[in-house]
């Protein structure tokens, strides 16, 4: 007997929020054939469509007052509404609608002046009502865009088709069977704590003109969207916990020699890859599907329109189910919920609450901090923008804050596989550490020792420096005597410096630092040497 839990990844082993239609295809034989990446992009032009589901961080579910705590005991956050018991009636969560509108506005969408919920009917135990309350042809937000900037500065404008409100499903635990997968399970155990948690589904228009940048743009889009949602404060956007999930639609069409002719070529058949739950996976899954499609098309085969499942461990997708037609869901307007009709005043009031968009914000901060493009890119890649901003606000120099967070602390966070914010050191402590360096009390190597102490829980930087006896010698007389002694003992080096070989000063500085047991400010030592020798 085996068990397969479908935990927080947001979807069952086989399906996500769409339920099941049609038959699961059992994978037979070995892995699918793929073309090399170079062959793929030389012969084919990719078209992408990304669907992102974001779980809102509301206190309660979308249509009932049940709490939404992650990791609660099974079926402890349920009520007659989210269990679909007869006679229960849903009422919309005001905050859920506001969050949806704010997301729509942040994505430069038009907000519908009037829209309804719809029932998406399917029979699957993850929704006890046998339908998911969603929106169909009247999404609350539509026709927007989001600019995505790649590492090399290339900006791609992703057109947003729609953002609509819906609810999450329950989680299934599949028990029994030889493989532990759904189609081998003897029975399933369902926990409805997640059923009814507000979801916003954000759907792009087909993304064209990407060429070999397609995987990178896909990843950058999800990353940019994540940053935007975080800045909006509407979700904790933790991909590893399933509060942000991505489905990637990929198709290929033959590549035209003349780029301007490319748009005349009709789209190929697409596949939808689910279970893509990390930024890195988004990039890998798109790349893999492109090479798989290319192999099928190059062999004169045809792509089956279907759901594919991404396997993080092996880096491949496998066939899921054939994609069902929308009419099989028999959508109809939800009779138990009245329409949503945000007034222009409401929309404008919500627009006034929008934060500065992440891309603009980065550009502004880069200017304020005086970072080079390369430095700023490192900061962004280290996920350190917010934490550096907080550190500067706590009094650090921007250069000092950057040096610690995207240098030493980022290095240690990487080694330990942790987030910067989980490293046990606060922006305030880093600002204090930077202050000790800027004030001339610590040099770099001492500051790193102080950092060790802070990370080991020995207290704040000042206390650690005191306890470990770390401080630069500020006694100018002692320092001057050490410098004099080293100069007297090294006439050859002095001669070189006097002859213009200033780099020879390094050896003198090293000797002074050694004589002072490392407790001297190297910059001050250089000054003292040059005063005496450089003349």
């Amino acid at each position: 007997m085996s068990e397969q839990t479908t935990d927080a990844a947001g979807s069952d082993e086989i399906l996500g929020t769409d339920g099941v239609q049609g038959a699961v295809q059992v994978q037979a034989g070995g892995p699918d054939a793929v073309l090399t990446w170079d062959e793929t992009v030389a012969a084919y032009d990719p078209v992408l469509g990304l669907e992102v589901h974001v779980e809102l961080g509301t206190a309660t579910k979308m249509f009932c007052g049940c709490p939404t705590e992650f990791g609660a005991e099974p079926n402890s956050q349920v009520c007659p509404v989210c269990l679909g018991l007869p006679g229960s009636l849903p009422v919309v969560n005001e905050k859920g609608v506001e969050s949806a509108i704010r997301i729509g506005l942040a994505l430069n969408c038009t907000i519908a002046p009037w829209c309804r919920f719809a029932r998406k009917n399917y029979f699957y135990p993850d929704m006890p009502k046998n339908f998911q309350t969603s929106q169909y042809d009247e999404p609350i937000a539509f026709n927007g865009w989001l600019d995505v900037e790649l590492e090399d500065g290339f900006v791609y404008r992703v057109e947003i088709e729609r953002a609509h409100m819906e609810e999450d499903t329950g989680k299934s635990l599949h028990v029994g069977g030889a493989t532990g997968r759904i189609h081998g399970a003897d029975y399933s155990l369902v926990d409805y704590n997640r059923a009814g948690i507000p979801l916003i589904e954000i759907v792009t228009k087909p993304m064209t003109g990407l060429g070999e940048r397609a995987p990178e743009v896909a990843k950058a889009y999800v990353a940019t969207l994540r940053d935007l949602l975080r800045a909006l404060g509407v979700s904790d956007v933790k991909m590893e916990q399933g509060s942000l999930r991505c489905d990637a639609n990929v198709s290929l069409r033959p590549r035209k020699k003349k780029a301007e002719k490319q748009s005349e070529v009709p789209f190929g058949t697409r596949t939808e890859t689910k279970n893509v739950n990390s930024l890195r996976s988004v990039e890998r899954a798109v790349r893999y599907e492109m090479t798989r499609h290319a192999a099928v098309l190059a062999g004169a085969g045809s792509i089956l329109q279907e759901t594919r499942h991404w396997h993080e461990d092996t880096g491949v997708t496998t066939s899921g189910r054939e994609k069902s037609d929308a009419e099989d869901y028999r959508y109809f307007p939800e009779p138990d919920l009245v329409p949503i009709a945000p007034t222009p005043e409401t929309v404008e009031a919500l627009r006034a609450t929008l934060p500065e968009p992440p891309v603009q914000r980065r550009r502004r901060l880069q200017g304020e901090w005086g970072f080079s493009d390369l430095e700023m890119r490192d900061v962004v890649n280290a996920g350190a923008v917010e934490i550096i901003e907080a550190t500067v606000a706590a009094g650090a120099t921007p250069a000092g804050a950057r040096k610690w967070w995207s240098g030493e602390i980022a290095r240690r966070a990487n080694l330990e596989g942790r987030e910067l914010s989980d490293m046990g050191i606060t922006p305030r402590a880093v600002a204090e550490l930077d202050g000790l360096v800027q004030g001339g009390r610590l040099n770099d190597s001492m500051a790193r020792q102080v950092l060790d102490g802070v990370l080991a829980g020995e207290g704040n930087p000042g206390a650690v420096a005191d306890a470990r006896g770390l401080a630069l010698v500020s006694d100018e007389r002692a320092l001057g005597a050490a410098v004099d002694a080293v100069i007297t003992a090294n006439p050859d080096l002095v001669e070189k410096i006097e002859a213009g070989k200033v780099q020879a000063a390094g050896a003198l500085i090293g000797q002074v630092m050694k004589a002072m047991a490392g407790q001297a400010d190297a910059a001050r030592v250089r000054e003292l040497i040059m005063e005496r020798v450089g003349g």
Partner: protein
Amino acid sequence: MSSLSRDDVAHLAMLARIELTDGELDRMLGELSVILDAVALVQQAPTEGVEPMSHPLPLVNVARPDEVRPGLTAAQALSGAPEADQQRFSVPRILTDD
């Protein structure tokens, strides 16, 4: 006359996860056709210039504040379940191998 086919009924039965015998399929085709024909009479009503209506009451934006309200305990929630295990609802296997 209704244009419902036997295949339509079989498809609907599959979507609803209801297993029908051949005899039941034939019977449902007849009964559903009668219902569809009756409902089709509504289509004869003159609707030109009339807005489609899904909600009879002139209400919009009925919402509640985002505040937790007491729900059911797990024991209460599971009390009506034919089978439960590990504090979860136990349901038959979902898909077959074929």
